[in-house]
């Protein structure tokens, strides 16, 4: 019984770690403008690392839906699903600056 429970916990930990790896890989496409893991030099763009999760998710949706004007993000955000936006927002929120 305990062994089954332990196996289930280990499996879910492994799945969680894999989901985090996938989010980090998905976020790596943002790095060409926003820096590795969202840590930019902050001169032109605010760092995404450690930005609140709800804020990032809401801004991405606002860019995507045309609610927030942008030079480029309105075009890029249209390439992302809600699920991807939530994964990116969670990843960046968990990063240290």
């Amino acid at each position, binding site marked *: 019984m305990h062994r089954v429970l332990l196996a289930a916990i280990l499996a879910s930990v492994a799945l969680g770690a894999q989901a985090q790896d996938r989010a980090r890989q998905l976020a790596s496409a943002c790095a060409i403008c926003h820096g590795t893991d969202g840590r930019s030099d902050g001169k*032109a763009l605010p760092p995404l690392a450690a930005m609140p999760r709800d804020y990032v998710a809401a801004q991405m949706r606002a860019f995507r839906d045309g609610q927030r004007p942008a030079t480029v993000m309105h075009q890029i955000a249209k390439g992302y699903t809600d699920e991807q936006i939530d994964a990116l927002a969670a990843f960046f929120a968990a990063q240290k600056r």
Partner: protein
Amino acid sequence: MKRRDFLKVAGAMSLAGCATTAAPSKARVVVIGGGFGGATAAKHIRLWDASIDVVLIERDAQFVSCPISNLVLAGYSSMQDISRDYSGIARHGVQVVRDEAVAIDAAKKSVRLASGGEIGYERLIVSPGIDFTFGDLQGYEAAMKSGRVLHAWKAGPQTVALRRQLEAMPDGGVYILSVPLAPYRCPPGPYERASMVAAYFKQAKPKSKVLVLDANPDVTSKAGLFKRAWSDLYPGILEYRGNARAIGVDEKTMSVKLEVEDVKGDVLNVVPPHRAGDIAQKAGLITTNNRWCDVDWRTMESKAVKGVHVLGDATLSAAAMPKSGSMANNHAKIAAAAIVDLLNGREPAPLQIVNTCYSFVSQKEAIRVSSVHRWDAGKGTLLAVPGSGGVSAARSEAEGNYAWNWARTIWADSLG
């Protein structure tokens, strides 16, 4: 291979490795080429799994960026600005070996170096950039050897030489830029270059002319934005001709031969057609038109040689995918993620990637093109996500600031 040579290389590498981790290595990945593709892949494998050894083989001491190099031609940037050394990725535990890969033995899983050593690998990444098919242009090799005709389509000594030619050209002279048929490295690059040289002439040699002889029927990227900038900023300076494919060049008469006429100039910047870099050809990685390397876009693994992943400009581009630094950097992340998965016994998952390319049209104003590329299981390739991507609304100094941000940031993401 002599055992002695292998030990020599292996010994040098363990000394250079700086012992970042005490854990035994899971596997070794060798990366050939330290440009936007190779450097990014080497760094990100280490970042995503530090138990994998990564060896980067690069023949040059420094990375010199093609993006921003057109600004060097105009005097708006310097070679120092666009150069980076490899100490940044060495800090991630990447073992940087300054050498040239001359052969790949895919059966033995080893790479032979110009210095004579050999390095074994579990997975190999080849990011060779482009080389030119000089034979497509009659007289090109002689013209190039004379030093009078340059391509400057790999940033480095030719960038410096072209800047010198532009500076030495008397006012009233003609600079000719000959553009090869697509696909070539950096679709908007020629038009940015024409803009930068025109900006320099307008300021320093206003009687001079830029003549673009394009093998393509029209400007191949951001056409509306470039043409608007040219008519607003460089009337009487910049002339564009489409369907003007060069078939030869003559440095004695300083002329570019087209199919129907010869066109004389004072500075001849003739960019020959390209193919995947030499090592890709030697290793049998080229699959298509004797030029490009087809890959599985879920992993970047070569469709010709198992265990070898090909990145960047050398690939047979997927639909609507430019040969760009942004794309090479993103290809590298697909390969890094897939290789980390494979070496950990996991199934690789497709990765969505983004392209963003800025081009300057004057000293401070830039324009941009972006696209998002997602795996399509039905078609078995990466496709632009419908409705996403596009170009700048107009040229602006704000886009110029973002262009510089992009450059600084991608250099750091690739090499820092």
